């Protein structure tokens, strides 16, 4: 009986496959159309508009002194914030995984707050504590320090949440083996723990950088938006749109996009090289 049933069993899924192919093509078509209309075409419109008046005019808009100042501040602040996040984020993840103290669970759930909090509220929370009538006597409003602080606030969860799961999974046998071979605690951290965390740290850093470079809402009230001093690129672009210069706004947007993509690709390459070793 089993001999005669076998060919039938092979043929059975066939009729079910045909209608599925039709629905697969339909669903794929819907998804491609959806993403094209929602993301691809609007972005193409920005790139198209930035080059509309020719390459020379694109260059003029992108290298206008105020635009350059804004772009420089944005990139430097984003790099500084990413560097601080790499250290502070790893330290926070370490304490949350390896240390134990009352209230740890509450602190752990608070880490996601910057993701849940509207950006304008993030700016106001910092303004409430570090504004001009600061109750602790520290004022960062309308300074570069304020820009850095707002960016640190909104990017806080990225590195922590990337490193935490890796740290939980990390096998402690390696650390014990290193310790039994006489390695100091610092050596164990540098040679055993850190290389294992590197891909996660870099992934978190990339996300934090991308977020920092485009941040707008938390800066609008806190930074004061002083051109050449505390005005970041997205605030500059916003000003250009408000004054009707959409072509100039598009040109600086394209530069900002290019910087963001370049850093993301570079960090991706570093992360892959780390994995290959």
């Amino acid at each position, binding site marked *: 009986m089993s001999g005669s049933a076998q060919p039938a069993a092979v043929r059975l*899924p066939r009729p079910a496959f045909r209608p599925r192919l039709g629905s697969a093509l339909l669903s794929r078509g819907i*998804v491609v159309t959806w993403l094209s209309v929602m993301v691809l075409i609007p972005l193409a419109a920005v790139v*198209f508009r930035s080059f509309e008046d020719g390459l020379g005019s694109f260059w003029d808009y992108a290298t206008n002194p105020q635009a350059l100042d804004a772009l420089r501040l944005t990139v430097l602040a984003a790099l500084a914030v990413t560097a601080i996040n790499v250290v*502070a984020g790893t330290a926070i993840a370490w*304490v949350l995984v390896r240390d134990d103290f009352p209230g740890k669970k509450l602190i752990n759930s608070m880490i996601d707050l910057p993701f849940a909090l509207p950006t304008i509220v993030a700016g106001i929370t910092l303004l409430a504590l570090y504004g001009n009538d600061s109750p602790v006597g520290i004022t960062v409003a309308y300074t570069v320090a304020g820009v850095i602080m707002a960016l640190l606030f909104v990017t806080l969860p990225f590195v922590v949440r990337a490193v935490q799961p890796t740290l939980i999974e990390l096998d402690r046998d390696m650390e014990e083996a290193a310790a039994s071979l006489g390695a100091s605690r610092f050596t164990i951290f540098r040679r055993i723990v850190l290389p294992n965390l590197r891909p996660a740290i870099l992934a978190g850093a990339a996300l934090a950088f991308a977020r920092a470079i485009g*941040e707008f809402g938390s800066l609008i*009230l806190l930074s004061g938006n002083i051109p050449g001093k505390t005005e970041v690129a997205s605030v500059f*672009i916003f000003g250009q749109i408000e004054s009707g210069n959409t072509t100039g706004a598009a040109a600086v947007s394209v530069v900002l996009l290019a910087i963001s993509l370049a850093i993301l690709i570079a960090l991706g390459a570093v992360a892959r090289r780390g994995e290959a070793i």
Partner: protein
Amino acid sequence: MEASAFPISGEEQALEKRPKDKRPRGPLDGGSKWARWALRYSVLFYLAALLIIPVIMIFIRTFEDGFIESFEAVTSEAGLHALKLTIITVLIAVPINTVFGVLTAIVLVRQKFRGKAFLNALIDIPFAISPVVIGLALILLYGPRDGFVGEWFFENGIQIIFSTPGIVLACIFVSLPFVVREVVPVLREIGDEQEQAATTLGAGPWQTFWRVTLPSIRWGVTYGVVLSTARVLGEFGAVSVVSGRISGQTETLPLFVRKQFEVFNQGGGYAAAMVLAALALLTLLLMNLINKKEERV
């Protein structure tokens, strides 16, 4: 498999003897008490100074100027309209993103086709670009004066920019990746054996989706919906650009907060910000509850 029947080795015995409430400790966990305390309290100080105390300050500032006076701004006509518009936007944008997000996730995980990697990268773009640029993109496409297709819509009496459709479009754009990114890993993990079994038993694609796929991805979808809702509720940059910020017409709650600070009604601004902060804390609570449920399932 027989190990449990035999006397356990010395090392395992030592593990058994450890007090149950203490997790196994590696060489980096013991040692200098001071180093551990120093690290713990620097981390706690950093979080307190950057995150926890500032958020508490919003609540203090709201009550400082007199709770009733501060809340008058929120319950004013413009304030209530902003609240209403924000809720309407959430009710339109989040369901649309949920339906298309689940569909996109299924296509990305279950199908193989050329250009899939490109599609996959496209989904993350809203996370990688400034919300102001997103707003600009929508203006350049749908703007009534200089948009590529906006003129056609305008001549046919449909206003997108400086109106509710533009606000909704901006919110869909910024929150597009959340549902996809939460559902994709779940779909990958559950595999497609059960779906294939259902199809073999004669279930159509619809039936398979409702009876097999959706029940197993429901917590992923819910988590994505919570994250999208939080993002849409608080979206500021993209909405600032496309809405025109007309008080009582195209002003959402985050825009209303900024307006209050600009007209030096700080008490009102703090009160409206507190409403948004309270909604964010609620979101956080939901996120934690869903995470716990997911772990149990």
